């Protein structure tokens, strides 16, 4: 099964400085799973092997190389999304390869005081292909997955009548992006031991009007 096309956008190829056409699809489908299992995972596994051979395999090094998700059972997560009314998945595809993946829940409750208890789109996962990660690749390839996915999450939130409310837990290297560029409220580190951010109605409006 492959998803339907939400729209055609562009990712910036850092190597050439040029934009390359990218398709945003939803839900993520079997071709995306095949990409992740066939391309993302072997790269991550190879890096783990490399760290091990250099005797540098520590949790810290895994974080620096952005391999925290190396163990994920992606296909299960995507498969599960397809059977559940409260889950949606998005993938960005360029040059026939999956460049990014987003899994969201649409049955969450907001925590920020001005919108406490109201429904929101919770981003359970926003991941870019390893070759697009700055921590993973010294010369990362495409830029823009995060921006497109964030715009998609807000659009979904508006469509669902959640007025742009979005929540997520950011990885440490992405905290500044969500706080300063996306303009989300920083609600601090919660019991997941990650920093939780929430976009309010007003902040969503400001993001779209930027």
């Amino acid at each position: 099964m492959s998803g339907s096309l939400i729209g055609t956008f562009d990712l910036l190829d850092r190597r050439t400085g040029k934009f390359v056409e990218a398709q945003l699809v939803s839900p993520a489908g079997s071709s995306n799973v095949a990409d992740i299992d066939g391309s993302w995972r072997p790269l991550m596994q190879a890096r783990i092997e490399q760290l091990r051979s250099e005797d540098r395999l520590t949790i810290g090094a895994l974080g620096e190389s952005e391999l925290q998700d190396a163990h994920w059972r992606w296909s299960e997560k995507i498969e599960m999304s397809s059977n559940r009314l409260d889950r949606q998945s998005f993938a960005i595809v360029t040059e026939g390869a999956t460049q990014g993946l987003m899994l969201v829940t649409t049955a969450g409750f907001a925590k920020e005081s001005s919108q406490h208890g109201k429904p929101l789109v919770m981003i359970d996962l926003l991941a870019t292909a390893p070759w697009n990660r700055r921590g993973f690749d010294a010369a990362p390839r495409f830029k823009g997955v995060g921006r497109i996915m964030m715009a998609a999450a807000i659009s979904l939130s508006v469509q669902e009548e959640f007025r742009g409310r979005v929540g997520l837990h950011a990885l440490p290297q992405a905290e500044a992006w969500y706080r300063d560029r996306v303009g989300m409220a920083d609600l601090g580190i919660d019991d997941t031991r990650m920093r939780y951010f929430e976009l309010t109605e007003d902040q969503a409006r400001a993001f779209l009007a930027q």
Partner: protein
Amino acid sequence: MEMLVSRDWLRRKIESDPDTDNDAGWPIEAIENIGMFLPSELVSDAGNVVELKHAFGVFIRQLRRRDQLSVEALAEKARVEAREIRLIELDPNYKPRPRTVHQLAEHFAMPPQALMKLSGATVTRDEALQEEAQKFAAKSDDLSKLSRQERQDLEGFVKFLVKSQK
């Protein structure tokens, strides 16, 4: 779903955005649960693992004594090697295999995740577990038969482990 921004808008933003990563989600927290997938060397990276493993050895030994089982009898019942049980009980640096931990968890009807953490088979940052495990190990002396106090301590720790996984 209709995107509320245009292709042009996205291009402009992507061009002017700072070049940072935007990844979000569960990965960091999940590290705790990936011992099975992580290379074993990583386990020593979590500071208190040796203490935890020491507590694991004491714990298994106490449970075995509570049930009045010899090493061989436990090995047979839990379908693991007797040699490995001896190593678990005596050598805090010994890292048991995940299967062994699972078999022991099953035999003693303990939550496997808690024992995986305790044994160092999965990496944990669970401070409450570390604290309780150290307290337990420090209090538990190696007597041939469990004293009443030791039995209480053991039961207290079992309760904590079971509860911590709820």
